[in-house]
């Protein structure tokens, strides 16, 4: 187990390092910079050169990269040009929002896709199968930012209701927090469920073909028990993969919805940082996201290895 773990760790770190170079380099190519953007806001051009020097933008690429990397190792991701706060602090503030949205959406997508996928697999080609696929594909095909617009518009007209503005932590008010999250989570959940539905269905179908399943049937075990007991457990691996990729997708992928519903999650943070040429924030956020992704994938790989010993020896 250990050599497997160590090897995956090293590979993961290499990926993150590559990501950091990508993040660092990408932004430098963009014309314009944070200083000018801030000046556009304040209308005061007086200290342009001074500000530039203060922000270290006059030093060469390699020097800046190494200096930044040194800080990262100590947990210092730099200070945001835009918010003037440490990037790590901003990211940690944005993280719970993204995590909550991701978890809610994933739970919802599993609640939809597991039973529907099982039903579809049990009666392949039947009405349930086609119906479930139709429903979930529809959720997948309509652009989610449009559904959000329609929900907001008609919610306010018909029900005089709109989600609370500005993030409300669940500790402050659980009700308001749920009000804020349930629509974007629902939209994302339905969106995701289509993908996972397909995979649940095909993994279950495949698992149902396995010899030991046929043996169980031959032995006379009740059908449902076979389905849920044995097949599902073996379909767990692909389902874990789905969950892993859903989480990483959701972590900064729900950018547009975060913007529309005023949720200050990591996705929105990255977009705003890119727009404002906020170098430290973009680098920090990409690195942070990369680390989380690698971490989640590592946990999933370990879980695989734990479930299926064959994998450890690949």
């Amino acid at each position, binding site marked *: 187990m250990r050599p497997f773990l160590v090897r995956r760790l090293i590979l993961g770190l290499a*990926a993150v390092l590559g990501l950091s170079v990508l993040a660092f380099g990408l932004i430098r190519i963009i014309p314009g910079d944070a200083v000018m953007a801030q000046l556009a806001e304040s209308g005061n051009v007086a200290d342009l050169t001074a500000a530039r020097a203060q922000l270290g933008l006059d030093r060469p690429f390699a020097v800046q990269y190494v200096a930044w990397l040194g800080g990262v190792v100590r947990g210092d991701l730099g200070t945001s040009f835009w918010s003037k706060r440490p990037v790590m602090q901003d990211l940690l503030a944005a993280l719970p929002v993204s995590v909550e949205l991701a978890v809610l959406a994933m739970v919802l997508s599993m609640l939809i896709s597991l039973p529907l996928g099982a039903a579809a697999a049990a009666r392949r080609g039947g009405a349930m199968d086609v119906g479930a696929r139709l429903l979930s594909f529809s959720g997948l*095909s309509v652009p989610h*930012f449009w559904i959000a617009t329609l929900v907001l518009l008609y919610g306010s007209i018909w029900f005089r209701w709109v989600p609370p503005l500005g993030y409300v932590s669940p500790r402050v008010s659980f009700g308001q927090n749920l009000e804020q999250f349930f629509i974007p989570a629902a939209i994302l959940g339905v969106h995701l469920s289509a993908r996972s539905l397909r995979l649940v269905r095909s993994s279950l179908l495949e698992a149902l073909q396995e010899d030991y399943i046929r043996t169980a049937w031959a032995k006379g075990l009740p059908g449902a028990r076979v389905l849920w007991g044995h097949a599902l457990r073996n379909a767990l691996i692909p389902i874990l993969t789905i969950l892993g990729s859903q989480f990483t997708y959701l972590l900064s992928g729900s950018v547009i919805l975060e913007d529309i519903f005023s949720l200050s999650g990591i996705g929105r943070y990255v977009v705003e940082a890119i727009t404002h040429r906020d170098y430290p924030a973009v680098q920090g956020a990409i690195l942070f996201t990369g680390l989380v992704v690698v971490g989640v994938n590592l946990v999933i790989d370990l879980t695989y290895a734990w479930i299926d010993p064959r994998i450890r020896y690949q």
Partner: protein
Amino acid sequence: MVGRWVRRHPVGALSALVLAGILAASAFAALVSPHDPYAQDYDALMRPPGGRYALGTDYLGRDVLSRTLYGGRMSLFISLAAIAAGTVAGTIIGLLSGFYGGWFDGIVQRVMDVMMALPSIILALALMAVLGPRTENVILAIATIIVPSLSRIVRGTVLQLRERQFVEAATALGASDARVLSRHVLPNTLAPIIVVATNALAGAILIEASLGFLGLGTQLPVPSWGNMLSEEARRYFEQAPWMALPPGIALSLTVLAVNFLGDALRDTMDPRLRRVHS
């Protein structure tokens, strides 16, 4: 044989038909459109459907129907070009990476890991921010996004095939690498490639829509389904829903059809499920 497929996958067949219709209408937009999509009629600003303008006009008096057709042409062109480019690039990378292995494979896979660690939309946004909001750059950005997943599938298949006897036999007989790759390995990767590419097509159309929605894709006044769904269409949706509904419905219908078709293709090409048929 086609008849058998149609009967077994009625939904997939219907989708293929719908898709063909949409593609034809878009490709021949110039012939089918009743009006010039750029002509501004100032006496008919935001007119509801009916009369001269079958689907109404937009905020500058342009015909929505014509713009939807031309928009489809643009969106589908972008998506198909991106998928084509990404598939070719991904296949080549996957073939080489899987076949030769070694340190080349190691490095390539790490780069692919890096690219897959970023959610597609962030990667797309970053690329568009660097390259600038133009149609060609959207194609490049989307192609870049699908390369990692495609190369991974191809590589996986190649790894499986590499050990198979017919490959070893071919090599033993003195066939060059290129010949082995193109004659023996590549044809067997086609099935998974088609499935992944079809999936990716649906995703590509939606990413184009997202980028257009954010104003980072094809720039107005050139219409694409994405940019037709942004700003004015949203702002005036209550009074003038006909500005946004046609591109929105066309978009959803197309993606739906692609998804169903892809599903049907996957069912057809999945060898493991084929066992059930017999």
